[in-house]
């Protein structure tokens, strides 16, 4: 009887979470998806005014450029939203993953340039779904690089395990996330800086959280005096 109750409780909990997510999405979509559309509409109007009055200037050109960049922004928002919705739909096969190999394939596709990557691991390999793990690491390391204020820095990846879970910690020496913004960091569409300053959909950490949770893990920001340190767990298929 108790296992049935537990399953029911779990289902109810899942449903509540899903409903909360939907409500949040509806609220946020009306702001973040409409914003580029509103900008495009305004910019198009000004360009039309210039054409109608016969005075096409450098400002007109810059308005057109801004319009195109808003289109790209919206496109990316929708792509990232779709990726987010798809998390957990397809289960990949489990494979033996060598840590050096994993880190190398992640770093290969990122603009590492002058950044130093340090791996501190108690293990050399483990068994897990490779693609989602790569996605998470790519996102976290990519974020560290993107938000760093200097052209070089240090990113440390710590890997540990216990009987049930693997534990990863990605830490950097960048500007970090202010305490007041940490709570909302994993929410959908939340960016650290205005999109006009740093382009980004704001879906990165939300995606990472969803993937981690679909792998039976949890994720959070580790308190640190400097930089940013994110720790997440992942089911260990020993």
């Amino acid at each position, binding site marked *: 009887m108790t296992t049935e109750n537990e399953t029911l409780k779990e289902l109810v909990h899942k449903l509540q979470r899903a409903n909360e997510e939907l409500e949040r999405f509806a609220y946020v979509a009306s702001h973040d998806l409409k914003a580029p559309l509103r900008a495009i*509409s305004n910019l198009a109007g000004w360009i039309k005014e210039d054409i109608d009055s016969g005075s096409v200037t450098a400002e007109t050109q810059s308005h057109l450029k801004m319009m195109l960049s*808003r289109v790209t922004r919206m496109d990316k928002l929708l792509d990232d939203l779709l990726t987010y919705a798809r998390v957990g739909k397809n289960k990949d096969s489990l494979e033996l993953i060598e840590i050096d190999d994993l880190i190398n394939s992640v770093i290969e596709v990122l603009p590492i340039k002058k950044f130093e990557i340090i791996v501190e691991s108690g293990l050399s390999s483990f068994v897990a779904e490779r693609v989602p793990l790569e996605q998470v690491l790519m996102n976290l390391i990519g974020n560290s690089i993107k938000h760093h204020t200097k052209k070089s820095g240090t990113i440390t990846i710590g890997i540990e395990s216990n009987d049930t879970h693997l534990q990863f910690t990605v830490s950097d020496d960048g500007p970090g996330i202010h305490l007041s913004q940490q709570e909302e960091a994993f929410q959908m569409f939340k960016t650290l800086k*205005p999109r*006009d300053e740093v382009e980004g959909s704001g879906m990165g950490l939300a995606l990472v959280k969803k993937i981690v949770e679909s792998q039976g893990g949890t994720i959070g920001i580790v308190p640190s005096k400097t930089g940013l340190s994110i720790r997440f767990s992942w089911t260990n298929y020993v």
Partner: protein
Amino acid sequence: MFSVLLIDDDSVDVMTLQRSFRKHPIMKKAKIHTAKNGREALDKLLSGEVDPTIILLDLNMPGMDGLQFLDHVRSTESLSKLRILVLTTSADRNDIQQATDKCIVGYIKKAKAGDYTTLTDLLYHYCSLTEK
């Protein structure tokens, strides 16, 4: 002359307001200051860099958002009497309630470019009433 502080993270929304002001015979002479979020705005106000006749405040911004900014302003003696008009896309009843509770001059929903003539007229009338 009037001084207006626009607190908004979206550069096109800021441009839209600036263009509306430019078309108004009096408001075109107003000094316009901008800030991308509540924190930046607070810094400019506390340092004395900006002493606005009125503030236009967006609610959704990364960093310190509009409601948090309102909280800070209303609980800081030197800033508590600032006139603030909320200009946002949010039609959320909770946002409207929370903002109104913090004594705002008005709550206006962002619209397409053409519709800011009414807002600009309103701002002109308000500024000429309250300017010392």
